[in-house]
């Protein structure tokens, strides 16, 4: 008797829930979008990325967007399948893992849903998705190395501080440096890594080891802003000048606002962008109705002490802004 009653109760509750959900779904005339993304606490990059998706694909802008944020590939696939069942118009994916997506993408295609990949590519046939808007890590590296070579230094002795070994960003950003070293355009005096967490402390140790070994260097090429900060801390402690007019030129990646403020103050020399704001571009495509096919790379900036402005920091920077003139020591 008790069991039957509890089952009844559950059924009633479920029914009410379904009715309620059906009542809320009143979205005629809006573009339905399903977004599968990584969790914002993954990195400052992702935080800006998720926030950008939320602001661009808001109800006010005429979208009915749902977002799933998880770092688990199978959860991501389950969420994508859910969106396909819901019959969204567009499916936007930044995959945790590049493989395992074939079936999901095919079923989206069969359902007539346009799939747009952002930030991260998926290992699949190009016909399985409509477009992919990505950051070209190789391009970022090339642009940064171009800047290093344009400094007009007599001889370039560079400390390379890599990110997580084997990650797309590390491979792309290292490639240009290694190529230039092979061609004899620059000399790598120390080659280290910040490890899997792109660690500030590890980067600091790499530079400290180079100083302790009595190495002569004049460029630090750190593959993200946190590691560039750690490297500069090591220089400060050892009393080596850096930044504008200093001995060692420092470049970081990612466009964190604190890093850009450091560049602006002449504490560092340059920063290379990795743009997390794909949403505006995707929205433009959707509005115009003509979506390109295949991989589209974003235009990305390199800012130096000479070219940096408040407007650019405000517009393109990610994460917290410490304010003008504040440097992170």
């Amino acid at each position, binding site marked *: 008797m008790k069991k039957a009653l509890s089952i009844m109760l559950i059924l009633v509750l479920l029914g009410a829930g379904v009715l309620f959900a059906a009542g809320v779904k009143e979205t005629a005339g809006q573009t339905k979008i399903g977004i599968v993304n990584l969790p914002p*606490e993954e990195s400052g990059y992702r935080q800006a990325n998720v926030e950008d998706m939320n602001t661009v694909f808001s109800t006010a802008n005429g979208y009915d967007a749902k977002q799933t944020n998880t770092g688990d590939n199978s959860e991501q696939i389950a969420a994508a399948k859910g969106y396909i069942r819901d019959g969204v118009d567009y499916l936007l994916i930044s995959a945790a893992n590049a493989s395992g997506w074939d079936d999901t993408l095919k079923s989206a295609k069969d359902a007539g849903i346009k799939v747009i990949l952002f930030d991260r590519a998926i290992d699949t046939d190009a016909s399985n998705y409509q477009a992919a808007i990505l950051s070209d890590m190789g391009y970022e590296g090339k642009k940064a190395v171009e800047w290093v070579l344009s400094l007009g230094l007599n001889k370039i002795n560079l400390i390379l501080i890599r990110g997580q070994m084997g990650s797309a960003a590390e491979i792309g950003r290292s490639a240009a440096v290694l190529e230039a070293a092979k061609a004899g355009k620059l000399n790598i005096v120390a*080659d280290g890594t910040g490890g899997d967490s792109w660690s*500030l402390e590890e980067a*600091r140790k790499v530079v400290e080891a180079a100083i302790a070994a009595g190495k002569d260097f004049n460029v630090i090429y750190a593959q993200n802003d946190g590691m560039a*900060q750690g490297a500069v801390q090591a220089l400060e*402690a050892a009393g080596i000048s850096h930044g504008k007019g200093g001995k060692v030129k420092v470049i970081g990646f990612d466009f964190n606002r604190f890093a850009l403020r450091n560049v602006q103050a002449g504490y560092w020399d340059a920063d290379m962008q990795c743009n997390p704001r794909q949403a505006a571009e995707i929205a433009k495509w959707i509005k115009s109705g003509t979506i390109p096919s295949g991989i589209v790379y974003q235009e990305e900036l390199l800012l130096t002490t000479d070219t940096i402005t408040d407007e650019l920091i405000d517009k393109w920077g990610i994460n917290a802004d410490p304010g003008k003139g504040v440097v992170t020591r």
Partner: protein
Amino acid sequence: MSTMKKSFSHLVLPLSVMALLIIINLVKGADYFRITMVNGALYGNIPNILFGASELVILSIGMTLVTASSRGQDISIGESATITSAIFVQYVLQASEVTPLTIVVAFLLSCVGGLVLGAFNGTLVSIFKVQPMVASLILFTGGRSIAFMIDGKLSPILANDISNKIGTVIPGIPIQTPIILTVVFIVLIAVVFKTTNLRLYVETVGINPNAARLNGINPKKIIFLTFLIMGFCSAVAGFIAVNKAGRHDSVNLLKLIMMDAILAVAIGGNSLGGGKFSITGSIIGAYTIEMLNRTLLRLEIEPAMIKVFKAIFIIILMVVASPVARAYFTKVLDKVRSSNKRKESIPKDAHIPTTNIAVKKEE
């Protein structure tokens, strides 16, 4: 003499490991111990090691106690430190002007946070009898998200003058502030252990909780207390780490440091199964790990291989310094010594004709 030998015998493992590393470093370059003055502070390999290991030393002290009493490890220490330092940063940032008082209050608040987190883990372990690693798995999994929420989904910047001094040097004092803070912390712990019976209680509980209970020591209370101390250690480590970094990066701050802390406890000659413990050993162990990390960089091992080399080094160090190897070495040493003694005794009796000895032996 024999009592001294006894009280230092547990330090043989960590000290021999450290000595090995020092030898490797000296072979690589004789200037390893050179110290210079830079901007009014001491600079060199040794100050760098002391500076870099500060958080690890503090955390491994807490880890030693937790291990000794609960016979398990707290794997959420990095996450706890991230949460407490988030509290610290938020309090400092809301202040209109940052004075030393602001920093002190913020630090105390973060300590309260640390104690709460310690109490959370401690309750699960002592009262609900959850295994320490499983209990701390909860904070390990969710801790960084909590810190991220406290941060307001950003990485706040800590760019005030006082924080900078805590993270680097105070003008006029030639030693970097984190090193001083670590020493103060070690002294504090030493005083606590000298003035209380904490060591005895923790060891008793770790060796046999039932026997401890029958002798009037409440194991639940002791285990809970060690987790509270762990929480406090996390708060101090988080405080130092965030002031060093000048920025609260909830994703990467002290990431995976529990691995090194557990290793420090093991290198320190402590059993990971609880019971008797040596904090001195763990402290030496922590500095040894920092030394090892820097040794690998000094040997210029390529980045892709550095972790493999670290693993190999640790295996070699642990095997060389293991009780089995030590017993073997002492045996060999004894043999060498006794044969030396025999050689020494021969010249004494050199004037005796060899035939005489042969005759004597025959008799």
